[in-house]
């Protein structure tokens, strides 16, 4: 493959010598190049989960409502009366770092295929994104490209992108994170499995032609760190074709409706190799493939290239011979190629033919289930500490109003409208809440019920303490759902980490999975599936460990939900929860003092659960008029955001404390700001019984004024805060300089 080196072929394909020996043992001989290429993909970290499988097995995946947990293309959650929600999240980090527009576009394409592969109609996408600082031109280019790519693909598909999040932190500078979650709706009886069953049944390849694009994407891009040779890996870039995918979606759902399919599987990472062997594995069967039948886009493609190409917009379908014509007809109606490329066998092997010639013969089990797993000796990185920072480490800035304005313009807090306005977030007309709030809520046509969705990730906190960080992320996702009145039901997750072969990274991964498990158990939100993205490192420097959580919740009545906007002047402003804010790991620490250090506060999962239960009850009983989670930027930013959303100011009086700045801008999981009508206050306080809830002020006026005892801490016109918050991202994208850390601290 690569000339001028004497490294063995397996090594160039990313396999270890021991893995090669293992493959030989399973085959009883040395693999030929086609087989080796297929094994190298299937045993890549991306497809084989070599470093994650043992730990993922620990996650709670059961529950009454779980129709399908990890293992299929998407998890499926029962929502009653015969309907279910399919959900899954996936990363497209490395492709996006190379070509942001196409990387993000094909990222959407891939996750959407996973959703309709299980027979569900996609109803929403969410896109958690992480970039480096916008002060750098390259990061602006990445952000613009990724957002445009998500928009181009999702908008064309007619799937609303209704949520997500964006963080900017230096740690992602050479390795942006582009995760996309897709959610679909499916009737119980329509659920499709990715299995190939029934000897003699046909294997159809449907959709785009196969080219050299994306050759080795999984092994080369997703399973290795970035380095100087990243530039040379460019030929692997794939270009998305959302129109073809739209036709593919409609054709597949039509075949589902007409019961033409035995099994359906998307072609993603690993191309034909992976999807064929997985279908055989799930069906307990074997498959004979004839690659000479695969419609090609390019001349002179080698057999191994056809087997590992990651060309987009393709699906593999298993059907009976009786349905062959019907399948072809449906595909012809949608102007799609549909070619029989193989047959189901009973021998448990993936056999690859080029016409008559047998060019590969491997046991399916060896490919799919028997990739070696590795357990690395974890090593706690030196920056992790068990101690909170001493309170006097940072002096209190003299002007807290200026701090608020600075935080409100921080790229991590300011309005994301510039982003979500580029997404068609309304198509399908189900949005009971539009983007910009705590969570998206989709009504379900013909029902009272609604589905609430959110994604959350916080690499900075996970960096300081991966276990606490992961617990906090799950709790925050649940809190976001509770804030709109939805009951958290299940999660999907995308685990973005560095190189797991390193002890420090493995430690982060292990701790984060443990934290996620604890929180999911405590909050009753099982894991329906997910994705692991390792090797997010460049030049030896890893990203912050970042488990991104996508959570689904339900509301019984889509018209009885709440957003975070202050509603009327004169309402009581209340603080729910009793967590103790800290500087450690906060946006305040980063933006104002330019540091990420210390120990983040832990979430008390039992109190959290009680608090969220109360929150939902308050919303359902219509006692709470708005609810907003205290997160990035602390209490002050939370108040400011609700004030801006409602166009109403507030007067807040807090207890006197030694460090009001920490009270205002510090962060701790477990706090929510509520508003309630004066008349309902008593009932609300009574309902709270035992859950900490106290009034801290009143809405009204055109200013945000905060006092502690006799001291005025903040007193700013709402219009000024709003202006700062609303225009910041656009200005930064235009290159008007991102704010620098440290300038306020030194004032």
């Amino acid at each position, binding site marked *: 493959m690569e000339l001028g080196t004497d490294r063995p072929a397996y090594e160039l394909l990313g396999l270890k010598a021991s893995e090669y020996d293992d493959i030989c043992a399973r085959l009883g001989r040395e693999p030929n190049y086609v087989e080796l290429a297929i094994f190298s993909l299937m045993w890549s970290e991306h497809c084989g989960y070599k470093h994650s499988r043992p730990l993922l097995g620990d996650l709670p995946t059961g529950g009454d409502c779980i129709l399908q947990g990890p293992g299929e293309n998407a998890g499926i959650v029962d929502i009653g009366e015969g309907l279910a929600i399919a959900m899954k999240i996936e990363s497209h980090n490395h492709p996006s770092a190379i070509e942001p527009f196409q990387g993000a576009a094909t990222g959407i394409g891939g996750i959407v295929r996973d959703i309709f592969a299980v027979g569900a109609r996609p109803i929403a996408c969410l896109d958690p994104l992480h970039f480096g600082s916008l002060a750098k031109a390259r990061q602006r280019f990445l952000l613009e490209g990724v957002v445009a790519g998500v*928009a181009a693909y999702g908008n064309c598909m007619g799937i609303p992108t209704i949520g997500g999040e964006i963080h900017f932190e230096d740690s992602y500078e050479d390795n942006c994170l582009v995760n996309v979650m897709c959610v679909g709706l499916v009737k119980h009886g329509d659920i499709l499995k990715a299995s190939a069953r029934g000897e003699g049944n046909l294997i159809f390849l449907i959709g785009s032609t196969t080219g050299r694009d994306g050759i080795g994407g999984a092994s080369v891009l997703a399973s290795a760190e970035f380095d100087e040779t990243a530039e040379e890996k460019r030929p692997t870039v794939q270009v998305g*074709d959302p129109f073809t995918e739209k036709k593919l979606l409609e054709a597949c759902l039509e075949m589902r409706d007409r019961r033409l399919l035995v099994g359906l599987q998307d072609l993603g990472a690993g191309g034909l190799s992976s999807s064929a062997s997985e279908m055989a594995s799930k069906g307990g069967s074997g498959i004979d493939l004839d690659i000479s039948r695969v419609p090609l886009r390019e001349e002179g493609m080698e057999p191994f290239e056809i087997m590992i190409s990651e060309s987009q917009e393709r699906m593999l379908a298993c059907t009976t011979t009786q349905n062959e014509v019907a399948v072809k007809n449906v595909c012809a109606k949608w102007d799609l190629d549909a070619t029989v490329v193989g047959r189901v066998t009973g021998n448990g092997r993936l056999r690859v033919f080029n016409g008559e010639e047998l060019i590969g013969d491997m046991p399916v089990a060896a490919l799919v289930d028997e990739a070696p797993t590795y357990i690395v000796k974890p090593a706690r990185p030196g920056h992790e500490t068990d101690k909170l920072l001493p309170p006097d480490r940072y002096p209190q800035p003299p002007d807290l109003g200026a701090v608020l304005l600075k935080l409100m313009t921080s790229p991590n807090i300011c309005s994301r409208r510039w982003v979500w306005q*580029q997404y068609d977030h309304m198509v399908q007309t189900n949005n009971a809440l539009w983007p910009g709030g705590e969570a998206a809520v989709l009504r379900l046509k013909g029902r009272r019920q609604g589905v609430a969705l959110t994604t959350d990730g916080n690499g900075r906190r996970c960096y300081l303490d991966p276990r606490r960080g992961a617990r906090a992320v799950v709790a925050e996702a649940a809190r976001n759902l509770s804030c709109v009145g939805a009951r958290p039901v299940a999660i999907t997750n995308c685990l973005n980490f560095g190189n797991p072969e390193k002890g420090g990274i493995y430690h982060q991964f292990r701790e984060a999975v443990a934290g996620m498990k604890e929180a999911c158990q405590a909050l009753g939100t099982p894991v329906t599936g997910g994705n692991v993205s390792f090797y997010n490192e460049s030049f030896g420097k890893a990203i912050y460990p970042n488990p991104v959580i996508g959570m689904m919740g339900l509301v019984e009545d889509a018209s009885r939900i709440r957003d975070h906007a202050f509603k009327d002047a004169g309402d009581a402003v209340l603080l729910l929860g009793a967590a103790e804010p800290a500087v450690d790991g906060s946006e305040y620490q980063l933006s104002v003092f330019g540091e990420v250090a210390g120990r983040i506060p832990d979430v008390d999962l039992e109190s959290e659960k009680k608090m969220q239960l109360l929150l939902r009850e308050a919303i359902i009983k219509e006692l709470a008029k708005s609810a907003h989670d205290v997160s990035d930027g602390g209490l002050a930013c939370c108040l400011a955001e609700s004030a801006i959303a409602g166009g109403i100011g507030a007067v807040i009086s807090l207890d006197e404390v030694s460090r009001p700045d920490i009270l205002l801008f510090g962060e701790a999981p477990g706090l929510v700001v509520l508003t309630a009508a004066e008349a309902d206050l008593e009932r609300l306080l009574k309902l709270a019984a035992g859950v900490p809830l106290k009034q801290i002020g009143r809405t009204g006026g055109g200013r945000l004024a905060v006092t502690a005892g006799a001291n005025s801490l903040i007193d700013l016109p709402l219009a000024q805060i709003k202006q700062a918050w609303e225009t910041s991202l656009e200005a930064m994208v235009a290159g008007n300089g991102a704010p620098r850390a440290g300038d306020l601290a030194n004032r």
Partner: protein
Amino acid sequence: MLALPQTEIKTVRFGVVVFPGSNCDADSHDAVGTFTGAEARYLWHKDTQLDGLDCVILPGGFSYGDYLRPGAIARFSPIMKAVGRFAAAGGLVIGICNGFQILLEAGLLPGAMHRNQGLKFVCRLVNLRVENTSMPFTGKYEQGQIIRIPVAHMEGNYFINEAGLAELEDRNQIVVRYCNESGNAAKEANPNGSLGNIAGVCNREGNVFGLMPHPERVCDPLVGGADGRGVFKSIIISVLKNKS
């Protein structure tokens, strides 16, 4: 919801054209079926039969991917020949977003679309001023009424040459314009840079209407408002008036 008996409303028949890349077809179908009670059925882009229909909707989306130019390929689909005949015979045709683009490419409405001035897809609520209420699609609105309807497009920057614009103005063919909250067709209120803040135009006869905003998306207060219902109500009233 209309001050008309359901039995009458039911006699009004809408057809919603489905191109392979349409994605607002179901939303339009729902808007008609659920919120007015009129009959709605889907039409495949290869159909050539529009008999018995009162109004054809060309919905939003990306008809054929629209990579070359929105609507450029769709206008050659078999159904567009039928739509041309249907319109010539006085049938009502409304093109929403991509449907508008297709009507322009097909020459059923004058003008052309450029990329949005900001070169970005824009999805948001806009204010529209209803300029012409003496046509079948807007009769339920007040002259000059300001309505809030979302746009969602990449190519809605309407263009027509000077002579064409003068003609549109003279013949009152500009049906809706982007405006600010107080009704001024201000530059800042224009989401895409369209000439004269034009959001929608009709043909001379007034039976073919194209607009970039999506009335079908705001027919239910639960999901953003009900200002779009007026379009569908207007059509029904006009059809029933002609029938009686």
